[in-house]
């Protein structure tokens, strides 16, 4: 129950920020992909099941809000949440280098996959790559900085122990 409440609070905070403060930045070309950041964070912190659940839930909310291509954000963020949840146990999650690489990769994949729906294919591939790269370049350092600030604020790691799979050593 506690986990579900945390997930709902996380969803509300992310969606609120996305539709208010971050939309003003986005319109000026500075896309901070908070959906991806939140999904990656959730997956690294809570593992693949919760990562996929969070990705699906927040992606679905973003799809309903957008009004076009219901399921595109949900699909990509589910897979990203699951993937990062699976590899979470094999990473030094508090390492800034790991975080920046993960966020860069995740943002690029999310943007490229979702923008390709808007373009109706890969006809505008140059724009697609440029937009995905710009979003990844912005989101990765900003996200890493946020994680660092969060760690400093609470005084210990943001990532607890990822649920260990039975029979699988960390």
């Amino acid at each position, binding site marked *: 129950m506690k986990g579900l409440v945390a997930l709902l609070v996380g969803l509300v905070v992310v969606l609120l920020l996305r539709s208010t403060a971050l939309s*003003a930045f986005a319109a000026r070309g500075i896309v901070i992909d908070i959906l991806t950041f939140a999904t990656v964070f959730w997956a690294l912190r809570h593992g693949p099941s919760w990562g996929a659940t969070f990705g699906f839930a927040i992606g679905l909310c973003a799809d309903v809000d957008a009004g076009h*291509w219901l399921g595109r954000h949900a699909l990509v963020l589910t897979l990203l949440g699951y993937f990062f949840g699976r590899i979470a146990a094999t990473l030094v999650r508090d390492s800034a280098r790991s975080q920046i690489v993960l966020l860069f990769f995740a943002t690029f994949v999310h943007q490229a996959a979702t923008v390709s729906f808007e373009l109706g294919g890969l006809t505008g591939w140059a724009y697609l790559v440029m937009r995905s790269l710009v979003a990844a370049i912005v989101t990765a350092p900003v996200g890493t900085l946020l994680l660092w600030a969060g760690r400093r604020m609470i005084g210990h790691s943001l990532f607890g122990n990822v649920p260990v799979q039975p029979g699988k050593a960390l």
Partner: protein
Amino acid sequence: MGGLLPPAERRSSVLVALYVALSLLLLTMGDRVPQASLRGAGATLFAPLDHVVLAADRLWSASGENRALHERLTGLELENARLRGLVVENQRLRDELDLPAVREHRMKAVEVLALTGEPYPAAATLSAGRRHGVREGDAVVTSTGLVGRVTEIYGGLSRATLLTDPNAAVACEVESTGVLGVLRFAAVPSPRLLLTGVPFSDTVQVGQRLLTSGYSRRYPRGIPVGRVTRLGRDASGLTQSIEVQPEARLSRLRHVFVVPGPGSLESQP
């Protein structure tokens, strides 16, 4: 968290497979889902939080905005005094020519609570709805030009589809020449607004202003829409493809005005 979701690897694989299947189902059959009611519920739920978040932003910019608005108000009052004289003259000339009276736009100021879409906003949640007299189909404008159209009403809130929505289309005319065309948003190869359906026989020049045309059934006539920035030909090579810069700054929407659409005006006594 492990209490609710089983931690076993096999179980998480099943879970992700279920989500993926649901996502694919929505991608193929999502149009049948009643999204408007879901968006309405979401907008109503988020509206108080949006107000709180936006209050800080409004306070931050209030001082500078207030000064700029006072300067603008003074300028507009002077211009208004001059225009009143012209209105009287125009009315007298229209009477002599037996032309129908021009309807004035009744505008209602509303606040933009949230924007949807990255990097360019494609929709906006407005702080007024059915209870405030806003109707589906009403035009949404700023002091500089057209922004979009109200497409969903939720009681105390509404949702406007902006010019940058992929499905938006606005019948326009070039102000000085009356050349007609339809303004659409194009995402490929890069996002921009295009005036389409203009034959090569019609002359359009860079810098000319576009207004909503009298042929539009969706927007009142004469609302500024944008300015021509670039001329080209469409993919078929049969008509012109004219790039347009919107008059309204879609990236800085805080307050907008709702103008009754042609449908609402027709229903008036």
